[in-house]
């Protein structure tokens, strides 16, 4: 069970990605990264802060594109760093490149809002 510098879990197989991200009911933030990528390193503290701030409402995991190229390819990741927020197997938002904390925070908040509204429409369901 590898833990990334962000504090999130590093996914190590295609099956794990399916189980932890695609099949999860709750929202999951996936941070696509690689060790040789400069901007990815700059994004680490930003993702770390998101984890802390939204820890009860959002799960944060990491995928290394060198180790899981098929997962990255299937997720249509064409450059890194890329952050995708999943809910019920769908991508709710994609943020490409190294972004400021405020930008990522507002993206996460918007997604969580959308999810809450959606749940409100469908009926009661635990996030």
């Amino acid at each position: 069970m590898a833990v990334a510098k962000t504090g999130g879990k590093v996914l190590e197989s295609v099956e794990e990605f399916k189980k932890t991200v695609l099949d999860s009911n709750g929202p999951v933030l996936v941070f696509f990264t690689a060790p040789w990528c400069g901007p990815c390193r700059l994004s680490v503290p930003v993702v770390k802060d998101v984890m802390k701030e939204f820890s009860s409402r959002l799960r944060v995991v990491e995928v290394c594109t060198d180790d899981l190229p098929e997962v990255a390819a299937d997720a249509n990741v064409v450059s890194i760093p890329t952050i995708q927020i999943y809910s019920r197997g769908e991508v709710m938002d994609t943020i490409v490149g190294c972004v400021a904390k405020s930008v990522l925070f507002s993206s996460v908040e918007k997604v969580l809002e959308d999810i809450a509204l959606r749940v409100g429409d469908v009926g009661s369901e635990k996030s």
Partner: protein
Amino acid sequence: MASIPRKTVHISGYSSCGFYTRILNILKSLTVLFPTRIEIVDHEFVDRSSYRKWLLESGFKEKFSDPRVKDHSTSPFCWLEKPRAEPAQRTNGDQVPDIKAEDIEAFIGGHDDTLAWCRSFMAPCEEKATNGVEMVDDGHNPGHGYDYDLVVIGGGSGGMAASKEAADLGAKVACLDFVKPSPKGTTWGLGGTCVNVGCIPKKLFHAGSLLNEAFKKDAAFYGVKVGSKDGSREDGLLAETSTNVHWSVLRENIQNYIRGLNFKYRVRLREKEVDYHNKLATFVDDHTIEIVDKKGRVDTLTSSRFLIATGGRPAPLECEGGELAISSDDIFSLESSPGKTLCVGASYISLECAGFLAGIGLDVTVAVRSILLRGFDRQCADKIGEYMIDHGVKFRREVTPKKLEKLESGEIKVTFSDGSDDTYDTVLTAIGRHADTEKLGLDKIGVEVNPKNKRILGKYEQTQCPNVYAIGDVLDGTPELTPVAIQSGILLARRLFGGSKEPMDYRNVCTTVFTPVEYSCVGYSEDEAIEKFGEAAVEVYHREFQPLEWSLSLGRGHNFAYTKVIVDKTPQENVLGIHYVGPNAGEVMQGYGVAMKQGLTFKNLIETVGIHPTSSEEIVTLSVTKSSGEDAAAGGC
């Protein structure tokens, strides 16, 4: 060029036949226009009945094997005679042609067929024959039923370019790339030699060493103070700049950049819908390959066509202890600095590596068996050597390593062929490259290689097995350069899937050697030009000069750049080759390559107004010839 034998056309008919006279006139016009290419022999009969009597009753027609002759009873009747060594004897006004069957080359026909023959005779096919491509039909058809239209073996410069172009043209393409680890265990990602262990890291290390050199040799003279030991000197000049190059940082940043390229290329192949597999391929038969991944799992793929683009690998050092040496496969990713290094070989790989290692402050020796940069212009190669010696690189000439031993300290003791020895931290061997074709299974499909270097033999990039093609370093007889592989790959893809007939033009390809003083050239070297055309037919314009940017640096006072243009002695002085030894050589030469493709004359060059102040302008302001004996050193402005 082979001379085209003259065509001898016989025409027979009768005078009042309009068809006969019309064809006769056309043929006569052709002999006026092309007297060396066609002659006619006219058999004119006075009237229809005498013509028909000869044609149908004399047994003349039996001399022909062509079945169409049987039904031909009209006028005119034309045929081709076989080419003879001496001009044939002609009896004028011969009404009963005495033609022997063995002299007949082919029946042409009557009016319509002969007209068609005249049209094809007039078509400019001779020139096209040397430029257009006649590849062997490989039987490819869209409904072939194989897994792929094209499987490319090798994901380097050539392989990737061909894959993407073929996919763009609608082909179903797979690209297989697999790196067999070097003897030292080094391996790398998608992109081939250039990206991982060739051009890219080489140029970045070279750039790093030039940067270091600029700080050491130039900074102080430009008033740029960079952490010098003790402020200004008394005479107003800045103290010499001291530098310290951290191998780990340089290596790490370069390797990270390369990983970024590996990633980018994977994405690109996917975007172009090329199926990429990180697997090793071997031929089973001409439409089937076996593929193995790094875990040893085996699979098969079938394809209508294959393209081999597996490139080359460094040749190993064969002497005792040779396995202690590393190669260019390893140097760019070494975990720690190579330290005191011996570079074995005088190829551009050896000299470029020696150059940047010395440039970043290491103790470097080059062991040269005979001459530097075999195949390149001798004079320019020697200038590179002189500059490198001045730059601090040591040379051991006319020796080869005989024995390598690992010492307790971890250093390597090298004993040379002249009995001398020395110890080094690293021995880098760069004595040549050969193609890695042994295990491809080429014997199963009848593809031949050059036994000397294992490179595949092919024509228009097609091998002896018609549906198997080869490009890049693996193909024998072509320049081993990335842009050559890329362009030949793209053109081949267009010929295979785009209906193109355009061949790759391997002539006048510019190249650059990134030694401490860079060297670029296009066309013939002086030695090649003299050998091919003779010394009397060749002239050389040249100049030695100092690039302006070096003028302030006292340490560079005796360093010079050099350029020469080789021309033939025709009135227009066609340019045969251009050579430049100096800074930014690659940037300087590219534009001249375009000019060479158009057919450059010396007049074109010197009529071009130079850009001032640059080093490139020296090429367009040349005036002194070697034969004049005048001093080639440049004067002032």
